[in-house]
């Protein structure tokens, strides 16, 4: 974790809410998808962002890329503020920050050959001559493990893994400094997930990119990330070294997530979360997790915990219990066994 100035990407207090009309009278409600997120990605570092669906991970990804503007807060990329989406400066920045999508078939244009689409960033940003572009496409295709003959194929005639490789190739063709991956493996077949994950790990190491890896899969995040941040209802609740977080989760929510990972041949005491799944339109007071938290106290219901380093080992966590500011209500023993 380097100092602020050396960071490739820094997001400060990002918040974004959407207005949703519900019911017959159509009263608009604000849904806070992202509610005060700060994160940083250093050059050559991978930050994993974990959370269940609807917690605001993908919105965070779009915010840091500047695809949509945050309501409050700011994004700093390489020391400069993110220009507004659609401006020339913003478009120019695209060659340095790229994205990999969840559904590669949707992210590719079915009417164009894969090679044409991989070359498209070079066309858009007018990089190199036609011959150089062709050469660069061939090189980047080899790098992601696509065969030269795939260049003329259309997305729908490729396999799921090959499509995602094509999306990755398109993202890498301009040699970006930052790669944002939004659930890049969750739409793929299980057998292919590991291959694509290894490819991304490998590429990140070789190309020394900064990477923001968004996923709901803790194990995938652990494999690829140097640092992991756990999100719950639009906020980061815990952040730290992936191995440490997985071995010794500090936040009750992370504990529940970790205990949900199946281990072959090992029976663990799983933490079963109670209560309703989180609804960003109706955010609980205090710690947003308290209605489902097995150890919540009165403090948790009223006071919002702050994300700050734990005294014992410096792990950043947002939980009154973990900081020892409140005594656990019940069953802490259960949690320690996982």
């Amino acid at each position, binding site marked *: 974790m380097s100092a602020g100035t050396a960071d490739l990407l820094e997001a400060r207090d990002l918040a974004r809410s959407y207005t949703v*009309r*519900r*019911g*017959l*009278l*159509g009263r608009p409600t604000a849904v806070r998808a992202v509610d005060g997120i700060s994160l940083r990605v250093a050059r050559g570092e991978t930050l994993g962002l974990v959370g269940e669906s609807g917690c605001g991970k993908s919105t965070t990804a779009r915010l840091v890329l500047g695809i949509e503007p945050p309501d409050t807060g700011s994004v700093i990329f390489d020391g400069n503020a993110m220009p507004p989406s659609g401006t020339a400066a913003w478009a120019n920045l695209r060659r340095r920050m790229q994205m990999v999508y969840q559904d590669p078939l949707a992210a590719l244009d079915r009417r164009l050959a894969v090679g044409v689409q991989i070359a498209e960033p070079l066309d858009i940003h007018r990089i190199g001559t036609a011959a150089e572009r062709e050469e660069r496409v061939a090189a980047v295709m080899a790098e992601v493990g696509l065969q030269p003959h795939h260049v003329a194929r259309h997305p729908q005639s490729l396999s799921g893994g090959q499509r995602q490789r094509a999306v990755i190739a398109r993202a890498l063709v301009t040699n970006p400094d930052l790669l944002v991956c939004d659930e890049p493996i969750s739409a793929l077949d299980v057998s292919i997930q590991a291959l694509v994950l290894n490819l991304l790990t490998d590429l990140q190491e070789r190309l020394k990119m900064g990477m923001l890896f968004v996923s709901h899969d803790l194990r995938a995040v652990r494999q690829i990330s140097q640092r992991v941040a756990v999100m719950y209802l639009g906020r980061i609740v815990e952040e730290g070294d992936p191995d440490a977080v997985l071995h010794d989760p500090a936040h009750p929510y992370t504990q529940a997530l970790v205990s949900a990972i199946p281990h072959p041949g090992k029976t663990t005491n799983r933490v079963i979360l109670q209560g309703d799944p989180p609804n960003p339109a109706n955010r609980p007071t205090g710690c947003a997790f308290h209605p489902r938290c097995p150890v919540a106290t009165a403090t948790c219901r009223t006071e919002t915990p702050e994300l700050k380093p734990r005294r014992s080992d410096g792990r950043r966590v947002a939980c009154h219990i973990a900081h020892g500011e409140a005594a656990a209500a019940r069953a802490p023993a259960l949690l320690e066994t996982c």
Partner: protein
Amino acid sequence: MLHYLLSRLLRAAVSIIMVVTFVFVVLRMSGDPAMVIMGADAPPEAIDAFRKSWGLDQPLWIQYFSFFEAVFSGELGRSMRDGRDAMAVVLERVPSTLALTMPAFLVNLIVGVPAGVYAALHRNSLIDRCVMVMAVTGFAVPSFILAMLLVLILSVNLGWLPSAGQDSWLNAILPIATMGFGGAALLARFTRSAMLEVLGQPYIRTASAKGLPWSAVVWRHALQNAAIPTITIIGFMLGGLVAGAVVVESVFSWPGVGRLLVISVANRDLAIVQAIVLMIAITMVAANMIVDVLYGLVDPRMHGQARPARR
């Protein structure tokens, strides 16, 4: 629901304002409204009086507002031909037109909907094929050709029905048949595809899989769900009826609004044209609004959105 009603009313109001604006702009663009409305050979003092009463010596935006005022108080100028009040001339033709369009609309519904439902329930049967052939023909044969074929066969060759005029109820049969056929064909085609779409839905399979008799499935589930998209095309059909009336009245020399419109366009009797266009437009906007509101009432999924496109 209240929000939906209000937003629909607002959209209707915007449409009407746009219609009036359209007429105003076209009128202004085509020359001096006084000359255009009163006719070039009107006496100068009449033209002056007209200018004054329409405020043509005022700036444009004031004219625009006084045009609205005139429209909503029904002062749409005088007919070039007999100098009568344009609105009165148009209004006295309305009953004749309704005498054709209302029965034709009923024919549309009574023939079109059952034919479409039956065709969908017996897909690929002989009757389905016949209904589809009729439906496609109903689209491809324009009403003026259908009208003339009917006249050729039933009046000229067989001599069963009169071909023109408004002397007895017999005169109305051919025009109504002409207009009824086209709309019924359209409606049958639409109902059939709406029905087929509904019949392909999982809940229909569920309903019949749980042992409900097929007739109950059709009545309780399929018909009610197919009715929702079908309502949306009724507004479109009203437009078709109005357009059909213009053509059919001309063919059969039926003294309705449509024929008046054609004659007035040919004679450039602009006060009448203007009155008819405004009247039809306002009627159509109102009809569409009612259809939308009905749609909102019938479809439980409507939560303040606009209904989907009519086609």
